[in-house]
C-alpha cells in the first residue's frame, strides 16, 4: 500500500508489467528519455533499455500500425498518443485494423495491445489538447475502452489492460494525473470490465467515469446538505458496459444522472441513458438526465469552466429529477 498520484500509479504499472513480461514494449512520441510530456513513462528507457521503451517518429498511424504488426508477432505493445486529438491520425488504423483483426482472422490473430490516450480537459490546455474522444472508440465493436478514475484503478486497470488479449483503448483523465490516492499494487481489484459502486446511496444514482468520478463524489457529498443520499457508480469500462451494476442501482434508486466531459450530443452518456431506460423503465421516477459538456468545440482555458460539468450542474440535474412526483 502506497500513496501515489495517478501518474505515478500508471508509471508503476508500466514498470511492473515490463518487469514481469519481457514481451511488453512501450513506444510513442517523447516516451523515451523525456519520459512523456506527462512523465508517465519516466525512467523506462533508462531502466529497461531503448529496445523496450523507445521514441518513434511523429506519426500516429505509424505508431498504431507498427504496434499492430508487433502484436501480430507476439509482443504486447503499449503505445502512447500524446494528446486525445493527436490520436485522430490513427483513426483508420484503430477502427479498420485494431478493432477488427481478431475477427477478420477468425480468432487466429489476437492483438494484445494497449493504446494509451491522455484525454479530457480541466487543465487549462489550448485547442486540440482537451478532447474527450471516448464515444468514437466505444462505438467501435472490437475495442475495449476503459478509463480509471483513481490512482489505484490507474495501476490495476493498466496492468489488466496490458494482460488482456484484446486491444484496449486506455483513456487517462489528464486532470487526475496529479491526484493522490492509496494504491495497493498487490490487490487484484475488480475485473477490468466491471463498474464499481463508489458510494452507496438511495435517492438517486450518479454515473460517472474517468475524470468525472471525483466530481461525482464531491457532488454526492454536497448533496447530503440538500437531503439527497446519492449513489455513485464509476463505470471504469465503457466498452463493454457493465449494465448489471448500473441497472441494479437504478432499480433501487429510481433516478439517475450520467456525467461526462464530452459534448453531450451523441456522447457516451446517451448510450447509458438508452440502456437504463430500456432496462429500468418501470422503476424510473424521472427521465435519466445527462450532465455533459456543451455541444461546442473544446473551449479555451478561460472558458472551460463553463463547458465542463460542475458540482452545481450535477446538483441542478439531481434537482430536476421530479422529486415532487413521488413524494405525492
Amino acid at each position, binding site marked *: 500500500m502506497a500513496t501515489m498520484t495517478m501518474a505515478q500509479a500508471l508509471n508503476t504499472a508500466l514498470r511492473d508489467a515490463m518487469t514481469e513480461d519481457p514481451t511488453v514494449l512501450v513506444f510513442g512520441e517523447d516516451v523515451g528519455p523525456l519520459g512523456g510530456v506527462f512523465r508517465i513513462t519516466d525512467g523506462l528507457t533508462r531502466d529497461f533499455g531503448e529496445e523496450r521503451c523507445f521514441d518513434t*517518429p511523429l506519426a500516429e498511424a505509424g505508431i498504431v500500425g507498427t504496434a499492430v*504488426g508487433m502484436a501480430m508477432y507476439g509482443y504486447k505493445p503499449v503505445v502512447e498518443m500524446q494528446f486525445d486529438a493527436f490520436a485522430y491520425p490513427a483513426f483508420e488504423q484503430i477502427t479498420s485494423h485494431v478493432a477488427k483483426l481478431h475477427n477478420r482472422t*477468425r480468432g487466429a490473430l489476437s492483438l494484445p495491445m494497449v493504446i494509451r490516450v491522455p484525454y479530457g480537459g480541466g487543465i487549462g490546455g489550448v485547442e486540440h489538447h482537451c478532447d474527450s474522444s471516448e464515444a468514437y472508440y466505444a462505438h467501435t465493436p472490437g475495442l475495449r475502452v476503459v478509463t480509471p478514475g483513481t490512482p489505484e484503478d490507474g495501476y490495476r486497470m493498466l496492468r489488466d489492460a496490458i494482460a488482456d488479449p484484446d486491444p484496449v483503448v486506455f483513456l487517462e483523465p489528464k486532470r487526475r494525473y496529479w491526484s493522490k490516492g492509496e494504491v495497493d499494487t498487490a490487490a487484484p481489484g475488480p475485473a477490468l470490465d466491471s463498474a464499481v459502486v463508489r458510494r452507496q446511496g438511495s435517492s438517486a444514482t450518479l454515473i460517472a467515469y474517468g475524470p468525472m468520478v471525483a466530481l461525482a463524489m464531491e457532488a454526492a457529498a454536497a448533496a447530503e446538505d440538500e437531503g439527497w443520499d446519492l449513489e455513485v457508480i464509476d463505470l471504469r469500462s465503457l466498452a463493454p458496459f457493465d449494465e448489471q451494476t448500473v441497472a441494479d442501482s437504478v432499480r433501487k434508486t429510481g433516478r439517475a444522472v450520467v456525467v461526462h466531459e464530452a459534448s453531450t450530443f451523441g456522447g457516451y452518456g446517451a448510450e447509458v441513458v438508452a440502456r437504463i431506460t430500456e432496462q429500468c423503465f418501470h422503476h424510473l421516477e424521472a427521465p435519466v438526465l445527462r450532465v455533459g459538456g456543451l455541444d461546442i468545440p473544446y473551449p479555451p482555458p478561460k472558458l472551460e469552466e463553463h463547458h465542463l460539468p460542475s458540482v452545481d450542474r450535477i446538483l441542478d440535474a439531481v434537482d430536476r429529477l421530479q422529486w415532487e412526483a413521488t413524494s405525492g
Partner: protein
Amino acid sequence: MTTRPAPLGLDLLPGDPVQLLSPAGEAVGELPAPEVLLDLHRRLVVGRRFDRQAQALVKQGRLAVYPSSSGQEACQVAPVAALQPTDWVFPTYRESVALVSRGIDPVEVLTLLRGDWHCGYNPREWRTAPQCTPLGTQAPHAVGLAHAARLKGDDVVALCFLGDGSTSEGDVHEALNFAAVYQAPVVFLVQNNGWAISVPLSKQTKAPSIAHKGIGYGVPGVRVDGNDAAAVWSVTQTAIGWARAGNGPTLIEAHTYRMDAHTNADDATRYRTEEELTGWRDKDPVERLERYLRTAGLLTDEISSGVAEEAEALATDLRTRMNEDPKVDPLELFEHVYTRPTASLRAQREALSAELAAHEEDAR
C-alpha cells in the same frame, strides 16, 4: 548522402528498370539458375490458371467480387518464390495469385471474396497477413512485424505488397519512414500497373519514378520490369537478402499492367484504350519466360504438360469445391469480436439464436 555498396541496383538513386529477359524471351542479363526459372514458370502457369478460374467463378456468382491480377503474375509469384516459409507476406486485395503461389489452399484464399467474413487462412500458419483492403494500411503492420522479429533475434523478412496508387496514402509514407528509422527487414514491393482504378499514374504522382520515393526515407529504391519473372525474382531475392543481412528496408517498383478491369465490377473501357492493352500483351510475363525456356531447351514438352496438368487439376478442384456454398454459421458472428466474450454479445447471440429457431419453426 549516405552511399552503401548495394547489389543489383539497390541504391538511393534508382536506375533504369532491371530486365533479364526481353519481351521476346531473350536473355539480356544474368539469369537465375534453371531450376529457379522452371519453378517460376510453373508458378506463373498455375497462377494464371487460378486467376482465370476465379474470374469464371465471379461470373457464375460464386464470388462477391474478384480483383484479377492477370498480366501481373510475375509480380505475384516471383517475390513469393524468393521468400522463406518463415518470412511474412503482407498482401493487398489483389494478391490472390501470390497467396496461392505461397501454397495457401485456393479456396481459403477466396474465402473473403466469396462472401464469408474472415480471411480464410490462418495468418500465423502461413505467415501471411489477411489481404488488406484499406489502401496502404498493411505497410506499417509489415514494418512492426519485421521490427518485432528483429528484436526477438529471429530471421524473418516481411514482404509488403503495394499498388502504385496506394503510395499516395499517408500510411505508406509513415511505414517507409519507420522502416528506415528502425532498419527493419522489410521489402516494399510496389506493383506499378499504371492505374489506380481509373486514376492514371500521371495524376497520382510527379515523382521521377516510384522507386525514387525511397530517397526521402534513406531507403534504397530499385525498378524492375514487372513482367519479367526472372528479373522480379532476382531483384526481390537481392532485397530480401539485403534485409536478412540486417541492412534494412528496400523499395522495389515493378512496372507491370493489369490486363483486366480493376475488379469484375469495374468497366475499364471508360478510362483506358485498347492500344494501351495491346502494347502490354506483347510483354506477357508467362509467354516471355516460356519462350526463353523453350529456346534454351529447358522446358520440355513433358515438363510443360506436367505443369499444365497441375494447373488444370487446381482449377478443377477449385471449381468443384466452390460449387457448394460455404457453410457460414450466423452464430459465429459473435465469436471473434473479442477474445474474452462480453455479456452484451452473449445476449445478442441468444437473441439471434432465438430468431433463427423461430424462422426454422416457421419454415416447417
